[in-house]
């Protein structure tokens, strides 16, 4: 186990190295002059030169990459072109809302999606199954910002006059100012962000459960009189866990991408907002930093998922 852990952790190093190399080399392989594009249309030649020097574009690629990588490894993501503040500080300031949003969405999605998938599989072919699968197709098809606006319109603005304006329209309250206000600000964004994720998890749960439910040991359990709830959640779900957990890990990419948009719709001052603002100002070091951070988190999550396999299925030995 320890050997596997070491190998698995070591295996993430080349992956992260490629991510770093890619995010860095974009500056060099982008068509046109990135310094000029970042500087914008109103820039003077001196501005362009300053940005070029700031990004190190005037020096050889490999030397610059080495320097940059060394900086990143020491926790220095460079300096924002627009605000002249260290990128790490900007990220720290924006971390809490994004982490809150994503963790809440993750928990909410799993709580909703897994029982949905189990229910659909248990009632395969009935209207319950159909309704859940149709909902899943809609979850995949309706983009996160559409769900976001719709939810805000109904549950915050009371757009249809249903008296359902329970939540604030926009904004974020730090957790330090109380759990209630924090949660009420995050409910609508989390539901909006969770849509695709719930659809994904529910589908995989249903598919895996169908496979497991056709196994002999499930029939045996039923035959010896085990209650259907025990069969479903103890026998079947545990054996279906590995693919479900895998998809939960892979789906975190959807959460990260969706968070960028959700934060824009609900005016949450998180990392997504930071990226969007950085794009409008073409502040590449900030974009670079956030993309690296998110990719790092994504790799770590999937590393964690790999390690979880042994918990759910003791037969998996490394």
């Amino acid at each position, binding site marked *: 186990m320890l050997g596997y852990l070491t190998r698995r952790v070591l295996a993430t190093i080349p992956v992260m190295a490629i991510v770093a190399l890619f995010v860095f080399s974009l500056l060099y392989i982008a068509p046109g002059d990135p310094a000029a*594009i970042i500087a914008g249309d109103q820039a003077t030649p001196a501005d362009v030169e300053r940005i070029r020097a700031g990004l190190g574009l005037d020096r050889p690629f490999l030397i610059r990459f080495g320097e940059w990588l060394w900086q990143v490894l020491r926790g220095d993501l460079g300096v924002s072109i627009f605000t002249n503040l260290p990128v790490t500080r900007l990220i720290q300031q924006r971390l809490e809302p994004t982490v809150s949003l994503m963790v809440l969405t993750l928990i909410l999605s799993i709580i909703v999606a897994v029982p949905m998938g189990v229910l659909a599989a248990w009632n395969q072919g009935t209207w319950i199954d159909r309704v859940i699968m149709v909902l899943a*197709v809609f979850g*995949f098809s*309706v*983009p996160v*910002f559409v769900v976001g*606006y719709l939810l805000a319109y109904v549950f915050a603005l009371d757009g249809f006059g249903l008296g359902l304006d329970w939540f604030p329209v926009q904004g974020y309250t730090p957790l330090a100012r109380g759990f209630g206000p924090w949660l009420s600000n995050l409910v609508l964004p989390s539901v909006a962000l969770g849509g695709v994720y719930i659809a994904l998890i529910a589908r995989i749960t249903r598919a895996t459960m169908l496979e497991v439910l056709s196994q002999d040991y499930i029939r045996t359990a039923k035959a010896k009189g085990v209650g259907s709830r025990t069969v479903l959640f103890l026998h079947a779900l545990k054996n279906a866990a590995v693919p479900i957990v895998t998809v939960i890990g892979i789906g975190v990419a959807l959460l*990260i991408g969706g968070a960028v948009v959700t934060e824009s719709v609900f005016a949450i001052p998180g990392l997504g907002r930071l990226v969007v603002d950085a794009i409008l100002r073409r502040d590449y070091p900030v974009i670079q930093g956030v993309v690296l951070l998110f990719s790092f988190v994504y790799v770590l999550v999937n590393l964690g998922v790999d390690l979880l396999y042994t918990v759910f299925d003791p037969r998996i030995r490394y």
Partner: protein
Amino acid sequence: MSATALPDAPVATASAAHVTPASAMPDVLPAVRPRGRVLTFIRRYPTIFAGGLLLAVILFIAVAAPLLGTTDPTALAPAKRTREPSMLYWFGTDMLGRDIYSRVLYGARVSLIVGFSVALLASVIGMVIGLVSGFVRWADSVIMRVMDGLMSIPPILLAIALMALTRGSVGNVVTAITIAEIPRVSRLVRGVVLSLREQPYVEAAVASGTRVPLIIWRHIVPNTLAPITVQATYICASAMITEAILSFIGAGTPPIIPSWGNIMAEGRALWQVKPYIVFFPAVFLSLTVLAVNLLGDGLRDALDPRMAKRV
């Protein structure tokens, strides 16, 4: 993946069985009515039919946009700004007085062009990379490590990072989303290639001295087409959403082009008082993505019955 080849077999034998007795005993087999065929198709593949029909309608809207009572989608009319939907302005007007109905209809063009181009480009490039990876041992580990790295960057962020360094244009949006989608297709094709290489008929071809390019062309490529087609529809759907997201956050198509993401971005500031500006492009975007997803689900069930049972 060998199951992809299976559905052909019974069909082929059935038609062969039809031919011989039909020439001998012309009255035994009932004549096939074309109307019956269409109905049978609808009954057998309701999702393909529903998705295809919906997509056809949107395709028609995109192509025939100038004929559907639209005006110039970029024409400014400041005196008539933010008009509510009415008989005159079906979907209302935005804050610059542009007709939202016209903008939404023309917006279908952008979404469809981006969706189809990305699906096509990502499939072709991903297929080539997957084939190389599946056949060239030394290249495989390098290519797959690079793909692992690319896949570790969430696709939307990857597209954002690419768009930050180029000027906004439809071509650049297509390129950025394509690059973000390529790793998944390559992986899929590589997987299919690796399993096909173990198939007896491929081994027989190798044993009888068939050259690798011919094996790829004759035995490998045809068997990758079904899974790639299914994957391509999903890529098309996700590319449309990504394009809308990029435009919505200001990193996509230039604001002058009426794309659904752009219309929603423009309506964002006013959405609490004028929700219809965001509403109409949102509905059209969702319906288009829904159509493509339905088509994809239907194709998956039809082309790969083994997959259908699993997901």
